């Protein structure tokens, strides 16, 4: 099996195999943390770094791990980075730690982290695994930031806690409470997938019609089973 290139991995994770839009992973946190831009930024940054370093670690010791105990090491390595991140957050950014509440700890079971460490890291060298984990996180971040940029103004009338609408909107009870509750995230994810997929299919069809451009790269191991 040949090692994929950095450019290929980047394109896959950001576009053709985007963890949220195509693989539909990490939806639980998509609903939960996208109500505020700042929370979303910190959370997705944490996911990117945890995925990157957990992938790196697991890829580094991949030849020592027996197949039947691999899950133990995946969870152990992921937990290590998540707890480390949480400790740092608690000590140096207690307000953020507080507003994120239990969601930081839940990165451990984030499907994207599990998916990349299960599918990509055991089959590839450490550096490209790090890059794969990181770009997966960035692909996740792109979508979530876009969602929070829609949800926060509608729900709270602010962006990154800076008011952008007149006071009558947020203070006068005219804000869209639905925008900060779970259903709106479902609507937004669905709309994003629709727009994104339509665009992708159109391009694919155009490419086929021309018969000049190469077909879509085959998905680099879509994590199956993990939710």
């Amino acid at each position, binding site marked *: 099996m040949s090692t994929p290139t950095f450019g290929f991995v980047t394109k896959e994770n950001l576009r053709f195999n985007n963890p949220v839009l195509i693989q539909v992973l990490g939806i639980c946190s998509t609903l*939960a*943390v996208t*109500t*505020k831009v700042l*929370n979303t930024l910190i959370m997705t940054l944490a996911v990117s770094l945890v995925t990157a370093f957990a992938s790196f670690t697991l890829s580094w*010791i991949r*030849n*020592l*791990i*027996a*197949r*039947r*105990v691999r899950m*133990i*090491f995946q969870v*152990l*390595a992921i937990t*290590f980075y998540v*707890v*480390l991140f949480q*400790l*740092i957050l*608690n*000590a*140096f950014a*207690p307000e953020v730690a*507080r*507003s*994120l*509440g*239990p*969601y930081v700890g839940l990165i451990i079971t984030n499907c994207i982290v599990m998916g990349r460490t299960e599918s990509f890291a055991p089959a590839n060298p450490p550096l490209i695994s790090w890059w794969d984990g990181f770009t997966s996180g960035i692909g996740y971040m792109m979508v979530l930031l876009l969602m929070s940029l829609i949800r926060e103004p509608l*729900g709270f009338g602010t962006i990154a806690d800076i008011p952008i609408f007149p006071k009558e909107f947020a203070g006068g*009870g005219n804000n869209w*409470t639905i925008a*900060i*509750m779970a259903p709106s995230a479902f609507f937004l994810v669905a709309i994003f997938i629709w727009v994104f997929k339509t665009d992708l299919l159109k391009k694919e069809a155009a490419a086929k019609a021309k018969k000049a451009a190469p077909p879509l790269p085959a998905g680099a191991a879509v994590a199956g089973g993990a939710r």
Partner: protein
Amino acid sequence: MKINKNSYIFSIVFTFIATFVLVLPLTLAYTATKPIADNYWRLQHYVKTLRSLGLPSSAAQAQEAKNAFESLDKYQVIPASLAAQDSQDYSVVQANVTGALAQAARAGLTGPFDLVQIKNVKVIFQALQDSSATGNLPTFFYITNLNGQKRYAGNFTGPGLWGNVTLAVGVNQDSSQIEGVQVLYNVETPGLGGRINEKGFQAQFANLTPIDGQVEFNPNGQKKPDGFDAITGATITSTAVKDIINNRALPELKAFIAQMGGM
């Protein structure tokens, strides 16, 4: 020697080593960051207790907040056996308290209970540290003397949606008016119930006048003297706050004031 990585021995030994290698740095990181986090919670406790008494206080002026907190009189309801044991930390104010005041003793302890004055502020630090993960803080009462008028405050814990909610509630000398309510601990949904921690929500409790020792939600669009605005989309958390104030804070503070009034 060739290692068979599928053998049980190798799996067990390797798992053990890997766990050790990963858990050791975490333990060290925890030990190193714990004092910083504890300091933060302690400062929050100072500032929020003072604010619940209607006294201005900010985390930016840590030393002032610490001094002001330490100058408050501090009381607690504890089992009589413990009060007798620890005479350098506690001095008994009233033995065998009953009714609403006995309710202020930590859940799970058995009576008879004594109302004691806390002589050593370390008791509170220890309780803060022990409850940092669960928020299940024992009830402490505080008294301050402002221009000859006394104000009373306490911290009260009750169930929220996901975990405990702990409030610091302060009242005037006859508990007819709330001086302030501050949220000391919550693990409610960020963005919904978690908004009880926002300044705007907490500010609306200053100068509320409970009717028959009860506060209530404001009806839509109106302001009542004993009412506060609930958070839209967070009914359970808002009700939890109301219940803690009505069922714990106000009756217990009233009983505490009645007890201390005789002195």
